[in-house]
C-alpha cells in the first residue's frame, strides 16, 4: 500500500491494474469496482430468477406438484429480497461507478476505499441471506416486507435476515455518499449542475433518497430484532406495541425505494433515446425538475400501500391525492421522451429497442399505478396479482430493461468491441415477448380475485397462470442470450471512440475501451463544452 501511495506522489505515468486476485479484492478503481458490481448483479439476477422459476413452475397448474407451501413462501420472499437489493440496486451502482466519473470528467469516484468496502459488503450480505436456505426452519418466508408478527415466526434465519438487511443498507448508504461527493466535487470545470447529463442527475437524486431512507429501514428491522430477542414490544400488541407502525415505517422506506430503483433507469433511457434519435434530449431542465418532484412526492405517499389497514378517512384522502400527483411529473418525463423522438432520425440498435420498450411498458405500469392510486379500487386490487402485474411491469420491462439498454449502450466503451447486434436483437425480442406473456395475464388474475403469495389457486385461475408460467420460463431462458452477448462482445469488431453516430457527452471523448485511467487531469473547458452540447 505504502509503495502505491509513494508511487502516486512521485510520478503520473499510466500504470495498469494490479496482477491477480488482488486487482479485485483490494481495488479502489471505479471501473473495476463497477465491473464487479455488474457481474455481482447479474449473478444475483440469475439466482433470484431461478427462484422465480420455482414459483412459476409450481403455479403452472392448480394443485401442489413440486414444493410445499412453506418453501413456496421462502421462494417468494427470497426472490424479492435478492432482486431488489441484489440485482437491481447493485446494477445501477455498477453503472454509476463506471459511467459517472467518465460523464463528468473525474479521474475516479471521490472516495475510492469506501467504494471498495461498499462493494465487498454485498457478497457477504448475500452469502448470509442465501445461507438461511440451509438453516433449520428454512429461509425467511414472511414476505420481503417483513411484516410483524409474521416475520417473528421465522426460524433460525431471523437474525441472519436482519443482519443481511443491515449490511445491504450500509453498502447502499456508502455507495450513495460516494456518488454525491463525486458529483458535487469532481465535475469538469464549466460543467454546471444543469449541464450534467440526465444519468448523473437522476443518480444524484437517487443517492439522496438512499441516504434518507436506508437508515429508516435499518431502524425498522432493528426494532424487529429487539422485539424478538430483547423483550421490547415495538410491534407486539400484547406488550402495548403496534403492528401497523412497522408498516408505516417500512413503507416510508419502501416507497422512496421504488424510485431508487426507477430514477436511474430514467437516467439511462434519457441518455440513449437522444443518441439514437440524433437529437438533443427534449426539456433537459424540466426532466431534472420532474425527477426532483418525484423524489419529493415519494416521501409523502407511503400509506397508499396500506389502504386496507384501517386509516382515518382524511389520512386516506391525503395519501390518495398525493399519490395521484406523482402521475404529473412522471407524465412530463414520458412526454419529453416522446418529444425527443419526434422529428428525430431514429435508428433501432439494441439499446434503443430496449429503451423504446421501456417507455411503452413502463407507461403501462404507470397506468396500473394510477388505477391503484384510486383508493376504493385499490381496496379491490390490494394484495392481488393486479399489484404483482403492476410492480413487475415497472421493475422488469422498467428497471431491468433500462439496465439491459445501458449495458448494450456502454458495452463497446467498456470492452472496446461491438457486441453482436443480431444476437442483441434476438435477446430483445425474446425478452419483450416473454415479459408481456408473463406479466400481462396477471392483471386479469388479480381482477378476477387471485390473491398474491399463494402456492395454489382455485381452478378458474388456471389458464392465465399457465400462460404466465410459460412466459416466465421463456423470459428466464432468454436472459442466457444476454450472457452470451456479453461474453462474445470481446470478439466483435473494434469500437470507435464515439461508438454511436449520435452519441454526445464526455464518456465518448475517451478511447474505447476506456483506458485504465481516464481524466487524470480535468478535460479542457472547450472539449468539455463541446461534449455537453
Amino acid at each position, binding site marked *: 500500500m505504502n509503495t502505491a501511495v509513494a508511487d502516486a506522489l512521485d510520478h503520473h505515468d499510466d500504470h495498469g491494474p494490479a496482477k491477480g486476485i488482488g486487482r479485485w479484492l483490494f481495488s479502489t478503481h471505479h471501473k473495476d469496482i463497477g465491473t464487479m458490481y455488474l457481474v455481482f448483479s447479474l449473478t444475483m439476477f440469475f439466482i433470484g430468477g431461478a427462484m422465480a422459476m420455482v414459483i412459476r413452475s409450481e403455479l*403452472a*397448474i392448480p394443485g*401442489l*406438484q413440486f414444493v410445499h*407451501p412453506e418453501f413456496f413462501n421462502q421462494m417468494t420472499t427470497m426472490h424479492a429480497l435478492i432482486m431488489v437489493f441484489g440485482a437491481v440496486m447493485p446494477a445501477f451502482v455498477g453503472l454509476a461507478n463506471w459511467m459517472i466519473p467518465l460523464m463528468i470528467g473525474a479521474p475516479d469516484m471521490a472516495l475510492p476505499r469506501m467504494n471498495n468496502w461498499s462493494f465487498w459488503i454485498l457478497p457477504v450480505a448475500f452469502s448470509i441471506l442465501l445461507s438461511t436456505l440451509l438453516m433449520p426452519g428454512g429461509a425467511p418466508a*414472511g414476505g420481503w416486507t417483513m*411484516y410483524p*408478527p*409474521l416475520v417473528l*415466526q421465522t426460524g433460525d434465519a431471523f437474525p441472519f435476515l436482519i443482519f443481511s438487511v443491515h449490511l445491504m443498507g450500509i453498502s447502499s448508504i456508502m455507495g450513495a455518499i460516494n456518488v454525491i461527493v463525486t458529483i458535487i466535487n469532481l465535475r469538469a470545470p464549466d460543467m454546471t449542475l444543469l449541464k450534467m447529463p440526465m444519468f448523473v442527475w437522476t443518480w444524484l437524486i437517487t443517492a439522496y433518497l438512499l441516504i434518507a431512507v436506508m437508515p429508516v429501514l435499518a431502524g425498522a428491522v432493528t426494532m424487529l430484532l429487539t422485539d424478538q430477542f430483547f423483550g421490547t414490544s415495538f410491534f407486539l*400488541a*400484547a406488550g402495548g*406495541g403496534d*403492528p401497523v407502525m412497522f408498516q408505516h415505517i417500512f413503507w416510508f422506506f419502501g416507497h422512496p425505494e421504488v424510485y431508487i430503483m426507477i430514477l436511474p433507469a430514467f437516467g439511462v433511457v434519457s441518455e440513449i433515446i437522444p443518441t439514437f*434519435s440524433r437529437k*438533443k*434530449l*427534449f*426539456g433537459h431542465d*424540466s426532466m431534472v425538475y420532474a425527477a426532483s418532484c418525484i423524489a419529493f412526492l415519494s416521501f409523502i405517499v407511503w400509506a397508499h400501500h396500506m389502504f386496507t*389497514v*384501517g386509516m382515518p*378517512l382524511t389520512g386516506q384522502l391525503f395519501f390518495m391525492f398525493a399519490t*395521484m400527483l406523482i*402521475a404529473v411529473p412522471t*407524465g*412530463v418525463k414520458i412526454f*419529453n421522451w*416522446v*418529444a425527443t423522438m*419526434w*422529428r428525430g*432520425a431514429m*435508428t433501432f440498435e439494441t439499446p434503443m429497442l430496449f429503451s*423504446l420498450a421501456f*417507455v*411503452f411498458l413502463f*407507461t403501462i405500469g404507470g397506468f396500473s399505478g394510477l*388505477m391503484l392510486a*384510486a383508493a*376504493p*379500487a385499490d*381496496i*379491490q386490487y*390490494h*394484495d392481488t396479482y393486479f399489484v404483482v402485474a403492476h410492480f413487475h411491469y415497472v421493475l422488469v420491462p422498467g428497471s431491468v430493461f433500462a439496465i439491459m439498454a445501458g449495458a448494450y449502450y456502454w458495452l463497446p466503451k467498456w470492452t472496446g468491441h461491438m457486441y453482436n447486434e443480431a444476437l442483441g436483437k434476438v435477446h430483445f425480442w425474446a425478452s419483450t415477448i416473454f415479459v408481456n406473456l408473463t406479466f400481462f395475464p396477471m392483471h*386479469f388474475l388479480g*381482477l*378476477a380475485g387471485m*390473491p398474491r*403469495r*399463494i402456492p*395454489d389457486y*382455485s*381452478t*378458474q385461475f388456471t*389458464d*392465465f397462470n*399457465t*400462460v404466465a408460467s410459460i412466459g416466465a420460463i421463456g423470459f428466464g431462458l432468454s436472459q442466457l442470450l444476454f450472457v452470451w452477448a456479453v461474453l462474445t462482445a470481446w470478439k466483435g469488431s473494434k469500437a470507435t471512440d464515439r461508438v454511436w453516430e449520435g452519441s454526445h457527452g464526455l464518456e465518448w471523448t475517451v478511447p474505447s475501451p476506456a483506458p485504465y485511467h481516464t481524466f487524470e487531469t480535468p478535460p479542457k473547458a472547450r472539449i468539455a463544452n463541446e461534449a455537453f452540447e
Partner: protein
Amino acid sequence: MIQKSFLSLLALCLAGTARAEWALNMPKGITDLSVETYNIHMLVFWWCVAIGVVVFGVMIVALFKHRKSKGVKPATFSHSTTAEVIWTAIPVIILMLIAVPVAETMVKLEDSRDPDISIVVTAYQWKWHYRYQDEGVSFYSSLARASLDARRKQSGVDPLTVDNYLLDVDRPLVVPRDAKVRLLVTSNDVVHSWWVPDLAIKKDAIPGIINETWFNAREVGTYRGQCAELCGKDHGYMPIVVEVVEPKAFQAWVDTRKESVQKVASTK
C-alpha cells in the same frame, strides 16, 4: 404436465369462455359500493386507455415516420415551454376529474354507522372465527374437507374434480339480504385480511386492533373470497364464503344454530 399446460393454453386461445367462471375483469359485485368501486375502476381504466392511445399513437407515428432510413434530417428543437405547460396542466385536470367521484365513494365506504347486524371476525392461522354480536351465534369457518384432501402435495386428486377448489368452507358466514352488516375485524396471531371481491371489502385483521367495515348485500347467493395478507404457510388455504339469504331464512338459520348449541350444552 407440459402437455396439459399446452392444452389449457390452446383452450384459452380457441374458446376463451371454456369455463363459466373465467373472468377478465373485476366483478361488479352485489352491493351499492361494490358497483361504485367497479365504476371507479372502469373510469380510471378508460382514462388510461385514452391517454395511452394519444401517447402511444404519437410515439408510433414517430417510430415509423422519423427514422433515419427514410432519409429524414433530425430537427434541432430541444424545448418548448408552451408544450411543457400544456402537458403538465392536462394531467392535472384529468386527475381532478378522477379524484372527485373517488373521494365521494371513500366517504361512503367509511360510514359504518347504524348497522343492522354486527359480526366480530377474528382471524387465526389459518381459519376464521365469526361471532354475531346480538344473535348469540359464533363458530369457526375453515377450508372444506374436499379441498383439504386435494390440496396436499401430489395428493393424486385432480383439483378440477373438486367443487370450488380452495374456495369452499365447512361453515359459511350467513347474512340477510338488504341489511347493513358491520364487520369488526381483528386477529388472534398475525396480520390477515378479510376479502370478498363481490362485496368490494378488504380489511386487514390485525392483532390488538379492531377494524371496522360494512356491506349491504343486494342479491342472495353464495360469494367467495380469500385471505389477502400473507399469514404463513397456509395463507392460501383460509377462504371466506358468505351466503346472502332472505331475511326470514336468516332468522331461521340463527334459530337452528342456537338450538344446536343448546343441544350440545345440555348433553354435557
